[in-house]
């Protein structure tokens, strides 16, 4: 069995007393070692210079009351035992110098005695595990002179309390659900990432980098992170959001870092800038890869030192904010191109989360559909429902290779909202879905060229093409697919030559061109 070691201050008031009367008064440190069911094998008795004689008296009294207790006295001299910095420093030194053997000894920190500041510092050092102990609080007997009174032992390791653990688990679940905007997502990769984000944002104020394709939900998650921290009282300031792509040229510096009146033409008055607006809060810089190099340098400074120089100012200002950066670009490549500072990247990608695009989260299409239907119900003020076959049709399309979703969930959610808005009587039927699918195809068709090549040639061979050739093939394919025959397509494609009568064998030229890509006319209609 481990032996119990108590650590505590001699109480200059509570433990005081020299004459015989001290025995009729409750003295916490003496009582601590006098409990019948608690054997303190060692007492580390802390005292300052003024408490030296008192500590000696207490130690002598304990020799009679509790001969089993070895009392070690430690002089920690405080000029002012109410000075937090001094007391914490002194106790921190004591804790660092003390040979804790938690495998052999069970430590109890006695917090009934000492100044309140001393008690607070002991608590903090115990809570931060600088002192690997539990707390013990003692109290006098109900009737004076009737024994050592009572004590309670408090373990600050909250995971040891079942009901609290359940509470934390619930809070964490709420946090996760919150980050997911209440959408019951099923994608394991996505859910795992959200769990990590939750843990990270609760634990740190370090910058966070969110990457992922456009429409994957970066700015939404950034905003939810802010709101989560806000509900947990971890952030007091505002959420400030800006897309760096909109911060090009002259105005970028002043928009971010502010300027002083008259610093340039048009600077009619002081402008605080976004960084200062985010003081005590959170700054979300979306598309951070678009930030100019000068702005990057200043931003790095602002993150590291929490100070920066507004445009035209001769004194630095400070702002303390948590940075969340978003980008859909490969920042490493931007660094290689010299367009992004390597030191800034190193600073912001300590916590880097890659948000998967819609294609990587097929499991989440249905939960998102339901969520968007609910949201539409609220926005539109009518209950929006969807027939079973309409739902099946839409979801089947959504995961098909045909559905490109270039804007990921942004596009997907917009499609749902359109269907909800156009649904007759609030019920989305198969016709509504088909209309939407036609709309989507048309929208994607406008810029569908690159994929048309991939559709016909397969992604691998398409990727091997030079851009030069690919643009050509893409147009050829589009024409072929709109024509009934090879000849018709040839006529359209070689219309100019034909007009000059430079060539008459259009079909042959087209066949040869297609053969070069391993295709015939039929093959152009694949996919």
């Amino acid at each position, binding site marked *: 069995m481990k032996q119990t070691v108590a650590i505590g201050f001699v109480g200059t008031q509570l433990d005081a007393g020299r004459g015989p009367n001290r025995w009729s008064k409750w003295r916490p440190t003496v009582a601590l070692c006098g409990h019948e069911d608690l054997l303190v094998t060692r007492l580390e008795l802390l005292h300052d210079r003024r408490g030296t004689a008192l500590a000696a008296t207490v130690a002598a009294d304990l020799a009679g009351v509790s001969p089993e207790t070895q009392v070690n006295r430690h002089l920690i001299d405080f000029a002012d035992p109410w000075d937090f910095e001094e007391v914490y420093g002194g106790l921190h030194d004591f804790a660092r110098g003390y040979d804790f053997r938690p495998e052999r000894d069970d430590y109890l920190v006695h917090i009934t005695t000492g100044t309140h500041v001393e008690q607070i510092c002991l608590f903090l050092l115990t809570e931060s595990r600088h002192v690997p102990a539990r707390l013990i609080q003692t109290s006098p007997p109900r009737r004076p*002179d009737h024994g050592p009174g009572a004590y309670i032992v408090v373990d600050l390791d909250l995971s040891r309390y079942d009901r609290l653990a359940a509470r934390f688990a619930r809070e964490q679940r709420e946090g996760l659900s919150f980050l997911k905007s209440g959408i019951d997502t099923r994608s394991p990769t996505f859910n795992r990432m959200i769990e990590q984000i939750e843990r990270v944002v609760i634990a740190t104020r370090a910058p966070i980098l969110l990457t992922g394709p456009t429409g994957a939900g970066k700015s939404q998650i950034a905003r939810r992170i802010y709101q989560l921290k806000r509900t947990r009282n971890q952030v007091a300031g505002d959420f400030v959001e800006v897309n760096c792509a909109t911060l090009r040229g002259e105005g970028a510096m002043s928009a971010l870092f502010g300027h002083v009146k008259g610093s340039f033409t048009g600077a009619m008055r002081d402008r605080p800038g976004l960084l200062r607006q985010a003081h005590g809060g959170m700054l979300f810089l979306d598309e951070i890869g678009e930030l100019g190099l000068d702005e990057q340098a200043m931003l790095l400074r602002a993150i590291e030192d929490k100070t920066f120089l507004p445009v035209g100012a001769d004194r630095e200002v400070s702002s303390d904010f948590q940075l969340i950066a978003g980008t859909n670009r490969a920042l490493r490549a931007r660094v290689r191109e010299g367009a992004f500072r390597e030191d800034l990247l190193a600073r912001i990608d300590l916590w880097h989360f890659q948000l998967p695009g819609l294609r990587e989260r097929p499991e989440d299409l249905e939960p998102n559909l339901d969520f968007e239907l609910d949201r539409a119900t609220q926005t539109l003020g009518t209950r929006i429902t969807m027939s079973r076959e309409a739902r099946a049709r839409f979801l089947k399309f959504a995961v098909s290779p045909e559905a490109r979703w270039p804007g990921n969930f942004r596009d997907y959610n917009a499609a749902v909202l359109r269907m909800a808005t156009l649904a007759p009587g609030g019920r989305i039927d198969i016709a509504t879905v088909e209309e939407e699918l036609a709309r989507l195809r048309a929208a994607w068709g406008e810029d569908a060229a690159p994929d048309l090549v991939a559709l016909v040639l397969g992604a691998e061979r398409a990727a091997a093409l030079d851009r030069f050739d690919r643009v050509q093939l893409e147009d050829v394919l589009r024409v072929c697919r709109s024509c009934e025959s090879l000849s018709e397509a040839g006529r359209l494609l070689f219309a100019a030559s034909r007009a000059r009568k430079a060539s008459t064998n259009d079909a042959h030229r087209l066949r040869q061109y297609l053969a070069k890509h391993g295709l015939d006319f039929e093959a152009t209609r694949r996919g």
Partner: protein
Amino acid sequence: MREGIVSIDGAEGEGGGQILRTSVGLALVTGTAVRVDRIRARRPKPGLMRQHLTAVRAAAEVSGATLEGAEPGSTSLTLRPGAVRGGEYRFSVGTAGSATLVLQTVLPALLTAPRPSRLVFEGGTHNPWAPTFDHLDRAFLPLLRRMGARVEARLERHGFHPAGGGRIVVEIEPIERLAPLCLLERGDVRSHAATAILSALPYDIAKRELAVLRERFPWDPECFRPLMVKDAAGPGNVVQITVACEHVTEVFASFGERGLPAERVAAQAADECAAWLAAGVPVGAHLADQLLLPLALAGGGSFRTVAPTGHTRTQAALVPRFIDVRVDLRRDDDGQWTVIVE
């Protein structure tokens, strides 16, 4: 040494520290292993307390015993004694425990150990809920000596609750075996002494206590004396009445405590003494439970006493578990009791 292990239900009878200490003492003197379960099971704070632990550890020390479950709060204890060794021992007893209770635990075994012993006890010598040193020295030890024991005790310093710091020295010359004792008459009263012991407390307390005692007992004024203790570690107040008879001496004590008027303290000891005087028997309630064990070791004996307390009944039930004797508690026609050990 006996084979096997005696299993005791610690919650039976008195159900507290006494059953534990007696079991351990009997284990030592008989060389039997003992296991006590459900230690203090019916008490508000069940399990071994530090004062019991002190006695158990002392017992283990003088007998080279192995212990299991010897820690605060433990509800089950096993002690396997080795050979009891006489010698020099020093036991520091915190004030929660009493030196006399620790002595009671180890004394029977050391009386018949192969070598002499010198025991030093430090701690409380005059504590409530335990025989005072004076009870031990004037009432109990003389009877043991009559049974052949060679044992002397000396109080070197008083120790009161809560400061403790007292000191008792006990010297034992071992003998083969105790002789039976028959104590049916107290004989003529030879002397009285009523003492108000006082340490670091106003003298007025002793005056008030002695005034009560003088009123209660028509004894020679010389019998009523204050005893001002100068060298104790802390304050203390004990009222002690000693009545020495031809065949026995009895000591009655009561303890001052904060909030309890001196007159009430004195009245408690006086009431006990008066009841014993009226009963006409030699052995008082507390002495009775202490005598059972030595009588059993002697193989027999008898004494007349007042109605047995829970402690005495517990002893009577416990002793035959270890020693092959019969203990009879018999109520006599005069309303008093005779205890016979065969």
